[in-house]
């Protein structure tokens, strides 16, 4: 139903122990965000992308499309940070570039350039790390790890139910939309708006109905205190841990040797 969710289950790293994937991606994420080094960010991003495409075997075209989504946000916010605007051009002292028109001035400062570069690289490596996690790890595996980390049970149950209900929502909206469409509900813009309104209101009714039914069904299966499931059994792999430690050592080494070489 959702491709990004589907890949989490069918990629070639889906059977790898979730803790290994989480440790790898979170360590790299936190390390590169702390040292704020362009080179490290680039290496992290390429390594994560490499793992996504070659190890998890996610089609590169799809990965590229996914990158475009945060890419757009990144670009628009970089434009906002890069350019500043003032009506008192005489107070400007550190601008690298400026242009005046009417009674205002648009300018760029060295600070804003630096900030942009920093933003660009931080976002780049964060995207890489988080996409690695989302594309290779099913949601309920993440929940299992969170449970082991003693995250409050209530939070985990809420997340799990929310996750399930995203798909209930989607399924209902798709089927209602198809039913409307097959009776020409979207034949004109006016009818379209009317149908859309009905779709949204019926979605609410449906979802409330579903959640009520679900709570009845859970009760009748003896739900009390907490939601428990059998956990999927994964095995730690020595090879993976060696690889992960090697990557850690490598990246720290690179930072000590070559840190600050770019920008």
């Amino acid at each position: 139903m959702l491709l990004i969710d589907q890949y989490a289950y069918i990629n070639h790293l889906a059977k790898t122990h979730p803790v290994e994937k989480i440790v790898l991606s979170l360590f790299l994420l936190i390390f590169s965000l702390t040292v704020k080094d362009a080179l490290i960010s680039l290496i992290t991003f390429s390594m994560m992308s490499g793992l996504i495409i070659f190890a998890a075997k996610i089609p590169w075209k799809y990965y590229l499309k996914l990158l475009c989504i945060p890419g757009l946000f990144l670009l628009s916010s970089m434009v906002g940070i890069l350019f500043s605007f003032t009506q008192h051009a005489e107070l400007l002292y550190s601008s690298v570039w400026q242009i005046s028109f009417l009674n205002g001035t648009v300018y760029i400062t060295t600070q804003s350039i630096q900030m942009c570069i920093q933003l660009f690289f931080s976002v780049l490596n964060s995207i890489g790390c988080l996409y690695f996690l989302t594309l290779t790890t099913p949601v309920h595996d993440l929940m299992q790890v969170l449970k082991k980390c003693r995250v409050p049970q209530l939070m985990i149950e809420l997340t799990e139910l929310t996750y399930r209900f995203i798909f209930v929502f989607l399924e209902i909206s798709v089927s209602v939309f198809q039913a409307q469409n097959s009776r020409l509900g979207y034949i004109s813009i006016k009818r379209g708006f009317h149908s859309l309104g009905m779709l949204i209101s019926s979605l609410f009714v449906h979802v409330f109905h579903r959640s009520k039914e679900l709570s009845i069904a859970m009760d009748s299966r003896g739900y009390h205190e907490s939601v428990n499931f059998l956990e999927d059994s994964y095995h730690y792999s020595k090879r993976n841990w060696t690889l992960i430690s090697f990557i850690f050592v490598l990246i720290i080494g690179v930072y000590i040797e070559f840190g600050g070489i770019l920008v």
Partner: protein
Amino acid sequence: MNDLYFEIQHLTHRYADGTVALNDLSLTISKGKKIALLGNNGAGKSTLFQHLNGILQPSSGSILFENRPMKYDRKSLLGLRSRVGIVFQDPDSQLFAGNVRQDISFGPLNLGWSEDKVNEMVEWAMTETEVTPLQDKPIHFLSLGQKKRVAIAGVLAMNTDVFILDEPSAGLDGYYSKQILQLLNQIHQLDKTIILSTHDVHFAYEWADEMIVMSDGEVIYHGDPIHIFKQEDLLLKAHLEKPWIFEMAEVLEAKNIISNINDFPRNKEQLITYLK
């Protein structure tokens, strides 16, 4: 008196909008029976099932479970539900866990069994309903028929004394309906009772040893699954048709090949022996 699971006395259920779903209904459910519940749409079958699981409370009347009046506090309900399992008609409203195996394990873990026992029961339920190959799939990857089987497995794994199924064969193809029939025959033991509602008279006639027919919130027939089909007025009222095996048997009866109504063939194999 010890062989009863449920004793329903003058049960009436009125919904908030005033609809009377069950009207002064009295019924007993014995131990060790295979019971089919038939009736037209809106006859009150699902409402009755919800009462048997303590989901609804009677507007008036009472229900006894093993000779004790049902109580609706949390603890009593948990006790009841560990003995009485129900599979709902719409599997989507029942399934919620991340993947198939986890969903099936939900009920058994609530019963407080050891992990080994839970594992064993989950494996067994998955094998019986043929969902083992699906066990790692998330629920939203499944088709309706697959969800239906997972829903059945989820309650099956709890191994309850009373097993209620609301239209188990709806939405399943012929092959899986047959599998479910076989499965229900297999899990049926001396002191267990299976109750299912269905619109499939052929299925009910073949499988059940007791039949309950409802119409407009009332029980209009409760007895063996053969005599009901002799009562044309009841069949008309409950929108039932005769199973074709029964109709064939009537022809044989007219030709004096079968003399006693209790010898009526119940399935194709039995019918064929008469034709030889």
